[in-house]
């Protein structure tokens, strides 16, 4: 796949992820109810696991997606490596958060799962871009 296509794919996916994370961050600060089909979003969003040292986990996700989008704009190898590090690091953290939802809170947040799905796609896209393109 050409670098241009990969960059577009990474940009679109990371902006989608940023949109979800921005919505969750805004709802966190506004203490507003979430649109939620799974019924567990509020439980997850208001749990002790929703903040890390006072920073909403959703805001960390937003920062991560913005960073990945920024790496898509750059061509240098170091930036491509950074995109992969953020995507795989995000997915590893997201894996822990899925365990928290299922194993500790018994509540599923559909927005978090949508974000996880985006990360699952971003990891191979950023890896391909790092390995295949020059």
């Amino acid at each position, binding site marked *: 796949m050409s670098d241009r296509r990969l960059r577009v794919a990474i940009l679109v996916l990371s902006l989608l992820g940023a949109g979800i994370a921005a919505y969750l961050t805004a709802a966190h600060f506004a203490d507003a109810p979430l649109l939620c089909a799974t019924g567990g979003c509020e439980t997850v969003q208001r749990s002790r696991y929703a903040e890390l040292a006072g920073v909403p986990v959703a805001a960390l996700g937003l920062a991560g997606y913005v960073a990945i989008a920024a790496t898509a704009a750059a061509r240098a190898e170091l930036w491509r490596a950074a995109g992969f590090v953020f995507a795989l690091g995000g997915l590893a953290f997201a894996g822990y958060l899925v365990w928290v939802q299922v194993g500790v809170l018994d*509540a599923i947040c559909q927005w978090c799962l949508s974000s996880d799905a985006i990360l699952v796609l971003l990891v191979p896209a950023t890896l391909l871009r790092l390995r295949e393109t020059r």
Partner: protein
Amino acid sequence: MSRKTLVAVSAVAALALGGGLAAALALTSGGTSTPAATVTGAGRLTTLLDGIEQHGTVLGSPSAPVTLVEFADPQCPYCAEWEARALPDVVTRYVRTGKVQLRFSGMTFVGADSETAFRTALAAGEQGRFWNVLTLLFANQGTENTGWVTDALLRSIGDSVPGLDTQKMLDARNSAAVDRGLSAAATLAQTAGIDSTPTFAVGKTGGTLQVVRLTSFDASGITPALDAALSQ
């Protein structure tokens, strides 16, 4: 650096980043101070109770015309069955609509776990979350007197209740106010002559309550009594 090495180094850095974030969150959320226990029903019960007034052990509007008192032991399996099968309907149709206020009167005759559980729920009541913790205790009930009401379970239950300060709840379990709540419930059960659980009493709020013999553990076992009291 070769491409392969760069990919390997990036992967290690990524896993360190993700793992570091997970470890930091586990530490700051108290998740590693005691092993986390799995809590069943948190999402469902949060939704069931969300937005309904709670004052101590009372669920629902204080001005509801009818009062339903539930005498139950957190360790009694039949009480857990009633909570699972009947409570959602009773709450949705009678409590949420402002017709009935539901008061829990705890009994602790089964054993030590009963008192630990009821004390914790009473402590959560100081934060307006008595029913959240009580219903989660029933939903996660273990075998009688096996020590199933562990701090790890209580911490996980507390953590899954929106807006509840878990540490504050755990610290308040032996407070004078909780002692008073425990003895008030014991006195009420003794005065009413309650000797088995679950037992229910229904009547006009502020009036004399009548003990109801349950015909079923689903909502239909109690709703005729509630409808009769409402139509009085």
